[in-house]
């Protein structure tokens, strides 16, 4: 089993707060973390440090995450590094286009291709761990637990079903 201590994660985001946040979350899970604040810096860090995983914001100054991904894809040595997109723009006009483009052109694939900001720290760590074949930390599986899952389910639930559930509760 791979160990977090042996893995280097690159966090790319133009917001210093987000970088600091994600870095702390990953370090707490045992990873080694490097950061970059724009697309160009990211590319330099990737070439120099050959990270094992990239956490990538989509809308970035200098070179967008979208462009960066296309460049990585062209480079054989770098195209195999797993990437997780972390964006606040999955639903906005600005981000939807690039994201759809990445998914339809198979630059990115799978249900775990991106996370939406604000991210849940444990879901974030788990996504990285899963991609790198690292056993989920106890903490992670515990805390994400009941409350988060319930919240997620309630958000996805169909209003009619909720109404019926409420009725059932009232009767009970």
């Amino acid at each position, binding site marked *: 089993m791979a160990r977090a201590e042996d893995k280097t994660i690159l966090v790319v985001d133009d*917001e*210093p*707060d*987000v970088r*600091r*946040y*994600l870095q*702390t*979350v990953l370090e*707490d899970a045992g990873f080694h973390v490097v950061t970059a604040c724009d697309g160009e810096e990211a590319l330099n860090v990737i070439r120099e440090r050959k990270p094992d995983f990239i956490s990538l914001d989509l*809308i*970035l*100054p*200098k*070179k*967008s995450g979208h462009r960066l991904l296309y460049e990585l894809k062209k480079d054989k040595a770098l195209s195999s590094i797993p990437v997780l997109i972390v964006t*606040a*723009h999955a639903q*906005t006009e*600005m981000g939807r286009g690039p994201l759809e483009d990445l998914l339809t052109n198979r630059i990115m694939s799978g249900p775990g291709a991106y996370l939406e*900001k*604000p*991210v849940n*720290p444990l879901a974030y760590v788990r996504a990285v761990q899963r991609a790198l074949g690292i056993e989920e930390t106890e903490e992670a599986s515990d805390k994400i637990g009941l409350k988060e899952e319930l919240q997620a389910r309630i958000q996805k639930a169909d209003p009619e079903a909720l109404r019926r559930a409420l009725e059932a509760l009232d009767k009970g």
Partner: protein
Amino acid sequence: MSSEPIGHWIRTELFEQVPISINVINRDFRIVEANRLFAETYGSWEGRQCYEVYKGRTKRCPRCAAAQTFADGQIRVREEKGQVRNGSPIHYLVHMVPLTSRDGQVPYIVEMSTDITPIKRLEQEKLEAERLAAVGQTVAGLAHGIKNVLMGLEGGMYVINSGLLRGDSQRIGQGWGMLQENISRISSFVKEFLDFAKGRKPHVALVDPNRIAEKVVALYRDSASLAGIEIKADLGKKIAPASMDEEGIHTCLANLVSNALDACQMSEKPGRRVKLSTRERQGALVFKVADDGCGMDYEVKQKVFTNFFSTKGSGRGTGLGLLTTRKIVQEHGGKVSFESTEGVGSVFQLEFARDRLPQPTDEESGAKE
């Protein structure tokens, strides 16, 4: 019928039957002839002055087009606002055709006016819809901006927590800094957003566009020269007064000039300049703010009008300036556009088609004196 001379029909039937109000005025602006539709629309006219019948005025209109036509014999077309027989308002398009005598004098003018009130109403509704769309975009953008702050706050708490668990005081300090920063971001957002969403009814009046431009340049002259940037106003001659919300336009120009100065400060070139110009172009009033600052790359251009997007770094700029500018410009029926080249500079342009400008708030040009 065929035996009647065609000229007779034109003189009698056509004059009475056309779906256009026709009247003839003499040099005293007194109506001396009118067709049936005119009488039906505007009421009795015999012996009355045109301004009285069309607009319910007691004196001649300011900028009277008929007076100009009497003077130069030119045909004129004007959009006017008046009142019909029962006093309700009407928008009409009037053609003024001089009846010129052999010696070149103009003793009479024929005024032909078409009721364009329904078209005007549609135009108004369209403007209104555009305004609402701007509000919608803003609200969607706001939700996004809040996401970023939220992430900063959650991040701050997480980092503090992590520091506490580990007894890592540096980490606690970092987390604390994140909380402080994001809380101050919230207060500046709230302030700017309230400005943006201000329910203040724009006070639209006839104003001199050049004067607003001059004021804005004066406002920034000191801070520009402190930063070693030259700022100047390049004012077009013959810029007619325009019906606008002076405070709103001032805000727009101030936003653009302040952005231009920031762009210059981000550039290391010597002899940096910002120029605010005013021009009249094809029925539109155009303001331009040009700088030879740092310019914008492709990504920044994409995000220019997005809420809370700023390249000025934390603590400067909340990213609402251009959005506010666009909202105000749209409320005036105008549009914002820009050109920018990285490393060369940017030009922002506000274009206001004169026929789309709002009506003055206090009805100076309306029916009553």
